[in-house]
């Protein structure tokens, strides 16, 4: 029987699985779950994976100013990155700008950050949605901060490979330009997921149940990963990983 785990630990374990084989994973600011997942993947990679956590002094080695992350991605030296969206639609378009008509958005968000660039250049972009609802996962975003796919001719070595939510994991088929349900987290049914998702998606041949973190993963998360997260995410490290579920 598996150990008890927190929902965040499940997501970190999922993220770690999606990062297998990557040599260099970059994580944006204010992204504790991707950071934790990346650090877990690094623990398993036995010295063959770098993780750069932006906003952390200890886990970022950049020495060429704010542009270096983007130059580094364009050089092909970043294999995986994470993006989220206030809205994400069925074509994997993401919206970080606003709800309603542009530019006088009814609800304005922070802005697109580096998404309009990194989404094109990083081979393995993992989308993360912390709230799986029809408000977030929509049929069509109100503003395209970064498109999920591009027409032939557009230089695009990168793009989305998966969308991880608090209910499930979708894979993304770049040729078809749509998501398919890969696995549902324990306790989630396909019907319930469809009900909470504002876009159409297909089903993998066999929709699995998301693998839960085993004892080894949990030990790493609560041990070395927690320690490494302390600097950039002290509260998260303490409250989420600092005590058994």
């Amino acid at each position, binding site marked *: 029987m598996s150990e008890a785990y927190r929902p965040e630990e499940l997501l970190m374990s999922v993220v770690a699985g999606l990062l297998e084989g990557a040599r260099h994973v970059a994580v944006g600011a204010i992204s504790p779950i991707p950071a934790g997942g990346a650090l877990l993947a690094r623990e398993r990679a036995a010295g063959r994976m770098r993780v750069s956590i932006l906003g952390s002094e200890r886990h970022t080695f950049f020495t060429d100013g704010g542009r270096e992350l983007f130059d580094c991605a364009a050089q092909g030296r970043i294999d995986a990155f994470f993006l989220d969206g206030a809205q994400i639609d069925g074509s994997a378009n993401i919206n970080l700008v606003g709800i309603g008509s542009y*530019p006088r*958005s*009814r*609800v304005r968000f922070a802005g*697109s950050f580096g998404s309009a*660039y990194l989404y094109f250049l990083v081979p393995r972009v993992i989308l993360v949605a912390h709230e799986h609802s029809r408000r977030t996962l929509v049929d069509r975003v109100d503003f395209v*901060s970064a498109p999920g796919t*591009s027409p032939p001719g557009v*230089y695009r070595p990168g793009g989305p490979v998966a969308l991880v939510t608090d209910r499930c994991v979708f894979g993304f088929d770049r040729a078809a330009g749509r998501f398919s349900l890969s696995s549902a987290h324990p306790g989630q049914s396909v019907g319930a997921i469809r009900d909470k998702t504002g876009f159409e998606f297909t089903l993998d041949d066999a929709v699995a149940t998301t693998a839960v973190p085993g004892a080894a993963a949990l030990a790493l998360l609560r041990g070395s990963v927690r320690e490494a997260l302390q600097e950039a995410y002290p509260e998260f490290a303490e409250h989420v990983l600092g005590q058994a579920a």
Partner: protein
Amino acid sequence: MTSILASAEELTGGVCCGASVAVPREASGCAMEAVRALVRRRVRDLTLIAVPQAGFQADLLIGAGCVRQVEAAAVTLGEHGSAPRFRAAVSAGTVEIRDSTCPAIHAGLQAAEKGVPFMPMRGILGSDLALHRDDWHTIENPYGENDPILLLPAITPDVSLFHAPRADREGNVWVGVNRELLTMAHASRETLVTVEAISDESLTSDVRLAAGTIPSLYVSAIAEAPRGAAPVGLPGYYDEDTSHLRRYAELAQTEEGFDRYLAEQVIAAPAPA
């Protein structure tokens, strides 16, 4: 030659209404004392260029009515939530937002640094950012076939304004690995810097320090402003004042609350001599 001025007030005294002012992200060093001086002087119609994003300083300037236009990849209070005065002003249409993306702002500054009218950039095509920026052009890459690529115009700020750990008496400024500050200084017509301390030790005579130094040639004026980034932090030197910023984030949810913050923390604060 670099002017050494007595206060953040004096430093920013020449920043005119209508100027374009570039400011860095919070982790790189915000000249908050100088920003408060701009608010007190009721500077108007600034074009604020966030390099590449901005937080508290942008929200404060926007709330105080100093800003006409913002070019930014993002405006946010980070861990303290969204930037309430920015959001309200954009929704109300009282501030014009020119949405960009981080590398585009860095590249625009690099174009100005190199004295070229534009820089090419990958990505972005097909986003609504590109749709709404009539100053971004798509051309065919002359080195490819059926390979559209975006051109971005040079960004040449009238003024760059930031805070750094130290300067020397010649006006050289040490910024360490925060090299976007160097690019900003290269790209801008004027560069104004507050520093924790002006030191007698030359920054250019020690090769280790020189590697992280903006030469005085690019620095119009400096002024000492100890803890000049507060309540934002200066990484490696002091932490942010979290309770101050949390309180700001709450108060600034309404115009009345923001005005109260302004009266208490900015207007009432005595200008340094």
